């Protein structure tokens, strides 16, 4: 019989919940993870939707996953392998293409082909962004400082940030403050002139946001995604063996090895609060489980508005959470292929299929795609970020066959008239005909596909609004404001109740930091 008393309960078996569980179990605590689905992983899952073809269903690439977490939790011993993603390929409307390679000279030559000026700017831009990212990166590795408080601890945090910022020149500091407010387009156009390069670069400024490349504050998002790339030469974007589900599986295996228990099909209905303290949870099936602490890795909306009685929370917090931007704008199309798509721009080579393929011919192209979404429609000609997992990890598809992962923007959660099967099908069709313009054989290569709208993301993964990051990574939703000012430190107004998912600092993406920080804080609080 399972005993229903624990040191800590983790709500949600996404990668952050699993990280939290592993750290707590490693510290000797008795821990249980409660996951509503039949499998762990949340937004990092791999499923064989079509027999023999493994889809990295939602997330597909990884760069932010903290190396200290990989080491602390011994994830390589539990199967984690992050394989290189060596290139980015952007087909252009004139039949040409532009590519970025894992070799500096080759990339420079390639850009030079399009613009000697851009080739030179590329180097300088890379250095500038890396330096800026390095200056602000320490914040990712520490608890968020709260500038409104004057406690010595927070002040130190700010100083620490200040110390790193002091490695910047005045020009760079000025650049940094501009980036905090600029649009990705404005910033990039100061550097580059080649449309397809601009389009491709600007795309990282809009991933997971309900904004276009010309919307202010998207420049910062771009920088945020740069952070994964600067630890020495070793942390560019990669593809996890087995898809991102492989990451969740390795963390789950590590957590179990440390002694954590993971219960599947266990939906938490409510957090039990006694005397202002979280003491346990009630499951949908009526079971009650007790613990000294409850850590929720569900999104902030679920954590604060669904799982706890509002009377325990101050109004300003509930108000902030209601306003937290969690509207999904992205969809996913996963495809099983009988053959690789042949790009007209590159008829005789499969080398670039090992990396990312980006449908982003220009900033205007992406901005127009956003315009559709702004008015409640999915983009007819969307931005698509593709990879071919089977080209990187041959185990993803049967020999000779392939899988393809397409991340798509924009598809608004609140589509006009609501999502239904017809609209989902039409959305999938828009993605395929977009790809078809550059790779005409795609249609005949399709064996089967899975189209995921933001509503599907919400209903499968449980993320409110289907926002891929549990809330957009905009400056006003980050650091000491994530998820709400005064409540950025993982603790909540309810003692013993912690936020441990992507809705907490430092934010979304496969990173593991929110789970780790929350667990460390709970330990510090003496659970």
């Amino acid at each position: 019989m399972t005993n229903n008393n624990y040191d800590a309960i983790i709500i949600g078996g996404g990668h952050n919940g699993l990280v939290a569980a592993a750290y707590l179990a490693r510290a000797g605590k008795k821990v249980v993870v409660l996951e509503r689905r039949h499998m762990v992983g949340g937004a990092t899952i791999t499923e064989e939707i079509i027999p023999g073809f493994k889809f990295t269903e939602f997330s597909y690439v990884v760069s932010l996953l903290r190396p200290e977490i990989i080491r602390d939790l011994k994830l390589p011993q539990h199967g984690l392998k992050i394989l290189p993603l060596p290139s980015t390929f952007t087909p252009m409307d004139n039949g040409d293409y532009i590519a970025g390679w894992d070799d500096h000279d080759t990339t420079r030559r390639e850009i030079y082909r399009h613009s000697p000026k851009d080739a030179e700017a590329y180097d300088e831009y890379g250095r500038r962004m890396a330096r800026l990212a390095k200056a602000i990166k320490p914040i990712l590795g520490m608890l968020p400082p709260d500038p409104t408080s004057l406690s010595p601890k927070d002040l130190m945090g700010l100083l620490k940030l200040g110390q790193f910022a002091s490695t910047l020149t005045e020009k760079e500091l000025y650049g940094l403050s501009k980036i905090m407010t600029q649009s990705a387009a404005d910033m990039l156009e100061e550097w580059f002139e080649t449309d397809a390069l601009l389009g491709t670069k600007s795309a990282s400024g809009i991933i997971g946001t309900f904004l276009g490349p010309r919307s202010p504050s998207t420049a910062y998002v771009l920088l945020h995604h740069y952070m994964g790339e600067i630890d020495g030469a070793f942390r560019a974007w990669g593809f996890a063996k087995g898809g991102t589900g492989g990451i969740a599986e390795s963390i789950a295996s590590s957590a179990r090895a440390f002694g954590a228990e993971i219960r599947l099909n266990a939906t938490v209905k409510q957090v039990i609060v006694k005397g202002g303290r979280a003491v346990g949870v009630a499951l949908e099936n009526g079971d009650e489980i007790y613990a000294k602490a409850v850590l929720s890795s569900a999104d902030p909306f679920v954590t604060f508005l669904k799982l706890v009685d509002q009377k325990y929370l101050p109004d300003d917090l509930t108000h902030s959470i209601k306003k937290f931007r969690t509207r999904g704008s992205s969809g996913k199309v996963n495809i099983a292929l009988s053959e690789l798509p042949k790009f007209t721009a590159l008829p005789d080579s499969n080398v670039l299929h090992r990396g990312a393929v980006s449908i982003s011919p220009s900033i205007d192209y992406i901005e127009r795609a956003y315009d559709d979404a702004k008015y409640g429609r999915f983009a007819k000609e969307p931005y698509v970020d593709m990879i071919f997992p089977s080209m990187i990890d041959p185990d993803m598809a049967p020999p000779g066959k392939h899988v393809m992962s397409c991340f798509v923007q924009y598809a608004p959660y609140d589509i006009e008239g609501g999502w239904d099967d017809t609209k989902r099908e039409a959305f999938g069709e828009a993605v395929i005909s977009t790809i078809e313009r550059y790779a005409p054989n795609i249609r005949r290569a399709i064996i089967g596909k899975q189209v995921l709208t933001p509503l599907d993301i919400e209903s499968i993964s449980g993320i409110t609004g289907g926002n891929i990051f549990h809330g957009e990574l905009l400056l006003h939703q980050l650091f000491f404001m994530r998820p709400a000012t005064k409540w950025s430190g993982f603790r909540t107004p309810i003692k013993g109740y912690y936020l441990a998912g992507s809705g907490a600092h430092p934010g979304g993406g496969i990173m593991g930091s929110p789970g780790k920080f929350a667990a460390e804080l709970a330990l510090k609080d003496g659970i």
Partner: protein
Amino acid sequence: MEKLRYTPFHERTSALCQPQNWRRWAGYFVVGSYELTIDREYWAIRNAAALIDVTPLMKYMIKGKDAANLLHRVTTRDIHKMSVGQVYYTGWCDDEGKLIDDGTVARMDETTFRLTAAEPNIRWLMMNAVGLDVEISEVSDSVASLSLQGPNSRVVLNRVCESDLDGLKYFRLIKNKLGGVEVTISRTGYTGDLGYEIWMDAKDAIKVWDVLMEAGQDYGITPVGILALDMARVEAGLFMLDVDYTSSGHAWIESQKSSPFELGLDWTVALDKPGYFVGRKALEKEKHEGSAWKMVGIEIDWVGMEQLYAEVGLPPQIPGTAIRASMPILVGNVQVGYASTASWSPLLKKYIALAHLQKPYYELGTDVRMEITVEHQRKHAPAKVVKLPFYEPEWKKK
């Protein structure tokens, strides 16, 4: 006129070697890396199937009634215990019990063995064969060899071999036909992963290469150079002659020599085997008294190293390949040893090294510091003595 040699695979390997990165190995040219960055080659070893030209290995056939007696006498293993089809890893020593070289011995039949070595050893073998009924011939040039390493190596071989390899155990060898060509295949390698070495007549080399590349296409087969191999072997805790130790035959001074115990090869020294073998007395003595040195693994503490770089405003700057250089290791302010190869491990996300430490600092868990150069300044990064191998997947021996 004699020149450096190309291996029999050169026609294929040279066409694929993009960076023109050639290395020298025992008088041959071999590919250092095939691609401009070696990441994919490294990962082919760890996640798919890496095809590596290892032809330059020295190879000797030892035949005759006394073949086993000769190897029993020369090497530290108990050769009489070997069954046909078995392969032993072994070192061999001089009279003082200091290592001359290391390699593998394969028992092809009752009276035939194949020995591989890093350096020429025919003279040493012949000197030890005086009075024995044995014939020693060198086949280094006439036998070509390919190493196919990685978790998919078995699937790929099974597609093209006459008899499948499912039953072939770790460190065993079979005769087989690969794409119609006579080969022997041993389940051996230098990566610590699942892997095989394929031995063939040099004239069949291109045929075998082509058959494997074709069969492995859907399984991620990738030609891999020796730079990526160097990283994998460090993860596997495997040392290399002339890099991690000096052959006693080449040493200028005593302290350059190492015994098998000092290199962590205790398990290969069969002191319980009957009769004489070269170095026996000295090895018995060392076993009894304990070794002054030991080769161990050390893990450099990344956070501690990051701190040293952060002091000058830099992120850690270590190359993404194995570094063959001597790096002092300290405890307190006293040097207690040195690292001979260090490598970033892309899989473990750790900076690791093979290190030689003096007694008692070689004990597991000992805190040490390794010298690194940060922006032209000597610094000492915190590190710890850990168990070798650094990485050992469960499928290595399964």
